[in-house]
């Protein structure tokens, strides 16, 4: 038996809370202790106020589709046999725009402004990544 192929490099201290959260089914984002602003991906300094007092906090996981398209070429082992992959930018309730994929919906039914909620996709090697599905649909 060969080891299952990893999707991602090993997390490090800067981003481990995000990936631990994903494995546990929680979307974690950085929030500023000083101004309450959220940001993603990893920052060392608040994009809103410049503070370095950033903490990982649980996000709502709710958002709307800002933009979407369909990946028709394999660029990664995860795409194998999975095309088209629905690519999307999702505007989260926390004010963050996330690059992600949509699942549980056919490409023809995706539209700008669609309300979505976070879900998590697990690799055979035990990693988890955040994806989004139409709000109210079961995982």
């Amino acid at each position, binding site marked *: 038996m060969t080891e299952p192929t990893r999707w991602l490099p*090993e997390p*490090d201290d800067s981003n481990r809370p995000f990936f631990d959260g994903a494995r546990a089914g929680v979307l974690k984002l950085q929030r500023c202790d000083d101004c309450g602003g959220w940001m993603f*991906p*990893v920052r060392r300094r608040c994009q809103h106020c410049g503070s370095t007092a950033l903490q990982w906090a649980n996000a709502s996981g709710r958002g709307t589709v800002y933009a979407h*398209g369909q990946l*028709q070429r394999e660029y990664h082992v995860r795409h194998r046999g999975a095309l088209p992959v629905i690519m999307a930018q999702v505007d989260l309730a926390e004010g963050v*725009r996330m690059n992600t994929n949509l699942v549980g919906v056919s490409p023809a039914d995706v539209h700008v402004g669609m309300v979505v909620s976070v879900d998590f996709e697990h690799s055979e090697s035990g990693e988890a990544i955040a994806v989004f599905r139409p709000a109210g649909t079961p995982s």
Partner: protein
Amino acid sequence: MLAAEGTGEDAMTHPMNGAAAICGLGITAMGRVYRDAEDLAAEAVYLALEDAGLPKSELDGLLINAGVTNGVSIPLHITLGLRELNVLTFMQGYGSSAGQMIQYAAMAVANGLANYICCVFADDPLKEGVRTGDAYAGGARRNAMSGLYPVYGFMGALPMYALGARRHMDLYGTTQDQLGAVAIGQRRWAAMNPRATKREPLDLAGYHASPWVVEPFHILDCCLVSNGGVAVIVTTPERARDLRQPAVYVRGFAQAHQHDAGLAGTDALVHTPAAKAGPRALAMAGVSRNDVTQCQIYDCYTYTVIATLEDYGFCAKGEGGPFVADGKLAPGGALPTNTGGGELSSFYMWGMTPITEAVIQGRGHGGERQQSNDVILVSGNGGVLNYHSTLVLSPHAA
């Protein structure tokens, strides 16, 4: 000389309107030229000097911009044996860089910092035995967080532009055929350009048959990948008139830059900074949009042309699809655009592609593709519609 139509009678001439001119243009071979970027840059500079009829000893300024391979920088002046210079720097604004270099060079010569400034770009993404499509996909070293980009399929800029195009379709009803009209029109121009890489005819069926990359983009919605170098020499109008080539005057210019910074709530894939830079550049030139006789628009993707023309105000936001669908940009159309074939069909030298054709047209050297050149509007675009430069060029002094 052009009247300042639509800008108010007797509008004050902007001090930079026509304060500089382009006197030299050097273009190397383009495409699968397996030489390194620095050598291509050096050749482009020598070609530009020869084109201008300017001895190397007169060149006293050098602005350098490297492409995706980052293969040319300050040491270029050593390679060129330029031992004394009055202006020298490396610049980076991605696809807006070339237009920016012309702007900084214009300001420098107009203010006496230097007499002849060469702006040079070169890139060598194509390697022997490597697929073209892999050249820009990027083999960046990633950590777990940046490793999410390939996991989700976000490889390079292409998917983001595709998402922008699809958002435009969702919001305004823009169609695949309308994207295709841009590619087809430019291919017709390319057929008249001996330097163009892709000159074989293209029709709508051929466009639709082209493989998908990220829907709504076919391969034919995407620019070429090219090795090559381009150099442009900027000087004062008086000096330009003493040289070999017809002067092409820098009449107006502007920049505008914006980014969503990863935060929600902006519409940066649809509303581009061209909306700010375009009107400012035209105002500097003392002309209105209606005076524009041709456009050279940065066309990394078909959608970029539509979004930029909308933001320049040639039609309302959202009407760019129908605007281009009737062949308006193509040979015989009312708004000749990317008359050399553009980045889609001629060659991809970032912002130097539109500038190269603008200089050829501005000199009246376009041959069978020559169009009315009184006011040439030129765009540069970098990032994902983030970084924008606009030039207004003309064979007419201010």
